[in-house]
């Protein structure tokens, strides 16, 4: 069977990236397997959870980004949220007492960054608004929980909640009907 070649020779760049990803996956899986065993064997604080979460952050952010909606706003939101969770884990597993203060500050910074990204390019970012709305929702819930006395009330939580509310109001005023149209799309069944 003679075959006439009618296709160009492919570039193999993407292939190299996939190979690196595969190697890194095995490295991470090995580390994720070994760390808890070493941690349990030598005892002490649960540092292996922090290690595993850190590897997860690197994996999600650099090596295996989302296949849908991997835009600047969602990347920023995912990364900073993962960092906030990492801080909570460090607080719980290694040295406690400061996360209730630091995490709202990180989330506040995240809201400010997302707000800036959104308002400097509204026409493009209008369709990428959802991560910001989730963070706003989460921040308002945190404030309500703090008001209810289930979380420690402090100035970063108040700043976070009030910034989230202000951002929500400004977004609704700016987008008007488009805001509700965006919600309709996102929550269609």
């Amino acid at each position, binding site marked *: *069977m*003679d*075959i*006439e*070649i*009618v*296709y*160009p*020779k*492919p*570039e*193999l760049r*993407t*292939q190299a990236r*996939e190979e690196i*990803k595969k190697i890194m996956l095995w490295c991470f899986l090995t580390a994720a397997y070994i760390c808890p065993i070493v941690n349990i064997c030598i005892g002490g604080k649960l540092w292996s959870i922090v290690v595993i979460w850190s590897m997860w952050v690197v994996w999600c952010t650099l090596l*295996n*980004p*989302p*296949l*849908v*909606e*991997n*835009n*600047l706003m969602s990347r920023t939101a995912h990364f900073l949220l993962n960092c906030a969770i990492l801080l909570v884990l460090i607080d719980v597993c290694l040295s406690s007492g400061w996360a209730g203060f630091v995490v709202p500050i990180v989330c506040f910074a995240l809201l400010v960054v997302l707000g800036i990204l959104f308002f400097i390019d509204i*026409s*493009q*970012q209008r*369709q*990428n608004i*959802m991560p910001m709305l989730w963070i706003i929702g989460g921040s308002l819930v945190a404030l309500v929980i703090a008001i209810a006395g289930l979380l420690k009330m402090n100035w970063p939580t108040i700043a976070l909640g009030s910034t989230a509310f202000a951002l929500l109001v400004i977004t609704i005023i700016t987008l008007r009907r488009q805001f509700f*149209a965006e919600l309709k*799309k*996102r*929550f*269609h*069944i």
Partner: protein
Amino acid sequence: MLENYFKLLDQHILLPKAETKLLISDFKKALLFYSGAELPLDEALSRLNPEKLGGFYCRPPTLWYPLDDAAKIYPLAMKSRQMSIFRLSAYLSEDIVPEILQIALTFTIKRFPFFATTIKKGFFWHYIDSTKKRFPIGRETSIPCQRINVSVTGAQSFRVLYYQNRISVEFFHILTDGTGGMVFLKTLVAEYLRLLGVNIPCENGILDIGDTPTADECSNDFPKAAPANKPSGFMDKPALQMSGKLSSVKPCRVLHFDMDSEALKAAAKSKGCTITAFVLALMFIAGRVATDETKGSIHIQVPVNMRSFCKSNTLRNFSQYCSVRIPVTEVSTVDELLPIIKKQLAENASEDAMNAMMNATVKLVRSLRFVPLFVKHPAALVAFGFMGDKVFSNTLSNLGVIRIPEEMRPYVTKMDFVLGTSITNRAACSMLTLGDTTTLSIAKLTADTSFENKLYALFVENGVTPSVKGSEIHGH
């Protein structure tokens, strides 16, 4: 004259600065091409009339479309190296002029607003959201059906490629099926030829790009299925797979068997069957040769166009599939296989069976509608990981006879249809006929050539000698 032209062009484009610049540059390049071809300026300006852009590039992107019931699984089952892509190509009598193809796409895309979209994540389902930008063409640099990056802002879910005399469109299956894709390709090629001065009428599935898109072209027609008398489901026993190491590049090779359609028809007629049944019989025999397994069944998936049962103008997904399965021990000669295949096709691809499957699809989608995506997504990945394509050994998708206007015939010499490969199926076959050429395309997932070699030998034995074209083997 030129100043007025660009003023008018500018009035038709309200995109971000960089996109506008690129779009205007496309028109300048096309004008330069016409100038090089010594076409009078007024004729060139008339062909590139900005009125053809309509209001598409002026209006903000406000349209959005829920995915049709068949498309809902594709983004859920998508992995970084696994994406349901198919490709349709048209071979012209002369090399492609990229400057003109770019303009043809710029004009054509407005007639297909649901293709000018980007995939988005909702709380319960993915959906496609319109995007307004310049949709670029690209020179083919890779093997067909490679994944499309749909993750970035404004990313499109299809690509238009050219190579020598070939125009190809590769679609992520969320947008459309083979029938809808073919309408897009024919409309694009017709517009390309019109820009080169050939008068092509809007008939035989070529849409008038000046017309307004209709609602039924982008409708989800799955709920139209009539109630069926028999139950249906998606679970099945694992099928026997061809042997051969899986390649890292997917697909690792694409082959086209160009055959004389009259000879193929005569061969099928001599066996008293349809071309699909005849090719299926050969695929079963070739599949048996390509595997070391001695137990189990070979299952071949055969997509069925639901438009033949249900009146529909939709250009989105509207197909289902049936399965033809034969135990490997019973795979013998064409004559012995054909009665089994004919019987199974008559039963499994019947209107009732297809309606049952459509009903099952609609029911499944409805039952999952209130389950958040963050729950559905990992569940679908696990389910797809367990089941995936293991229930089939191979696929044969036959788009049938492609009709084009007589005026287009001298310029379009051939068409082909390539299915992207899945996870474990070592081959995926697809077929279409244009004029007197039937092209059977095989996308391979292994360097083992047993399947195609045997298939070729079987065609020759049955009086059809294919002319074989394709790519080199990659990823080994």
